[in-house]
């Protein structure tokens, strides 16, 4: 254990950094996708709702590992070889980010939809009755209330997404699991290595969970602060 830590510790820490980076990129775009698709799913417009429904169910119905292979290998192949347009290469980080963003975005969309639907329709009606347009009402009245109820689920989704980055080891991104595999293949100390890796995930996730609890408590106590 000590040998692994002293020799490969810095490497594993760097890999953890890569994991966090990938998760952060993915989450950033997932938030954007989730917001857009989530709002689309509560609009009156049928085309928007159907698009959102298809997107969410499609992504949720495909295992992430398949999505990862599809984006990393499938799409460049299709673009370059089948369509013969050429020139498309995705780095593992790019493909990984897209994959996480799509996957997590679909779940975020569901969280956001549920959050908006949990706000009493009377809030929107009151805003509209004062002459506020739909989007102003959404922005000023409905979304601020929806977001408050969504935050625990969103943080939970962040944690899941952080764990999901490990799946992206299959496309060769040097995140924690991938790096650990290399360490094991060099040292053959799989028990120690995986124990360390597990511990590293655990620490980060525990920190996130504590943060979630803190935010939740603050939301309960002072709804004013948000």
């Amino acid at each position, binding site marked *: 254990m000590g040998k692994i830590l002293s020799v490969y510790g810095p490497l594993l820490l760097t890999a953890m950094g890569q994991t966090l980076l990938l998760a952060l990129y993915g989450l950033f775009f997932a938030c954007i996708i989730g917001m857009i698709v989530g709002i689309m799913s509560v609009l009156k417009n049928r085309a928007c709702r159907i698009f959102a429904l298809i997107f969410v169910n499609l992504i949720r119905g495909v295992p992430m590992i398949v999505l990862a292979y599809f984006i990393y290998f499938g799409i460049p192949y299709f673009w370059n070889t089948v369509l013969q347009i050429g020139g498309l290469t995705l780095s593992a980080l790019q493909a990984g980010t897209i994959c996480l963003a799509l996957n997590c975005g679909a779940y975020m969309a569901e969280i956001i939809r549920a959050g908006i639907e949990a706000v009493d329709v009377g809030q929107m009606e009151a805003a509209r009755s004062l002459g506020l347009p739909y989007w102003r009402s959404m922005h000023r009245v409905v979304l601020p209330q929806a977001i*408050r109820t969504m935050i625990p689920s969103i943080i939970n989704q962040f944690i899941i997404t952080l764990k999901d980055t490990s799946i992206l080891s299959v496309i060769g991104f040097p995140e924690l699991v991938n790096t650990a595999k290399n360490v094991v293949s060099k040292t053959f100390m799989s028990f120690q290595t995986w124990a360390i890796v597990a511990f590293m995930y655990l620490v980060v996730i525990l920190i996130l969970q504590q943060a979630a609890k803190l935010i939740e408590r603050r939301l309960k106590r002072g709804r004013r602060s948000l």
Partner: protein
Amino acid sequence: MDGEAYKKVKISVQHLKKNYGPLEVIRDVSVDVLEGEVVCIIGPSGSGKSTFLRCLNQLEERTSGTIWINGQNITSHTVNINMVRREIGMVFQHFNLFNNMNVLRNLMLAPVDLKIATKDDARQTALRMLERVGLSDKADAYPDQLSGGQKQRVAIARALCMKPQIMLFDEPTSALDPEMVGEVLQVMRELAADGMTMVVVTHEMRFAHEVADRVLFMDDGQFLEEGDPETIFGNPQNPRLQDFLKKVL
């Protein structure tokens, strides 16, 4: 000639119909409301009172018919409904105060956001309206810190901050504890005395009797009887109305 005839028609509803799928909720209703008039709508649950009221500011899209507000056909496609709604305040059964804002911001939101008033002007108007409903001390309170009666008075003040020409009330006291009904009705009474044009859906027969210029009895999506309160309550003609009054009085 009768002086009443010169009064402006504020709301004119012609052959209004509203269906939910196959369900006919409003069946060919026509009615006019004059400037400064207080019209109370009474009737059994599910008869379409709320739906009718919500059609007046198009919170509910009508199926057919025409609605004029201040002489403007608001059911035409070219009309900007948001502009129309500025003229029509609405008070809901469940208050619908914005839970994410304190009282003052509830009152200031629409005037400031729609750039009808500067922040300072909106604040002054808001404070004046709060005073009018007797809640000057609650400007910084959040909705969940108010009693039902206080919430409803804030809701009225919020609507008044838009300086509407018409106020719609949908059972404003039905969700209140009995001891709080009076304070809300008092505010409405004063509003009526100030000459506000009001359409009030209510189960408060005493209020209707006392304040209304005209009472409409709605049943099954139609106004079956209308008249001044003395006649409606003292000498009802329609058997359905007689039946209804027997139950509620």
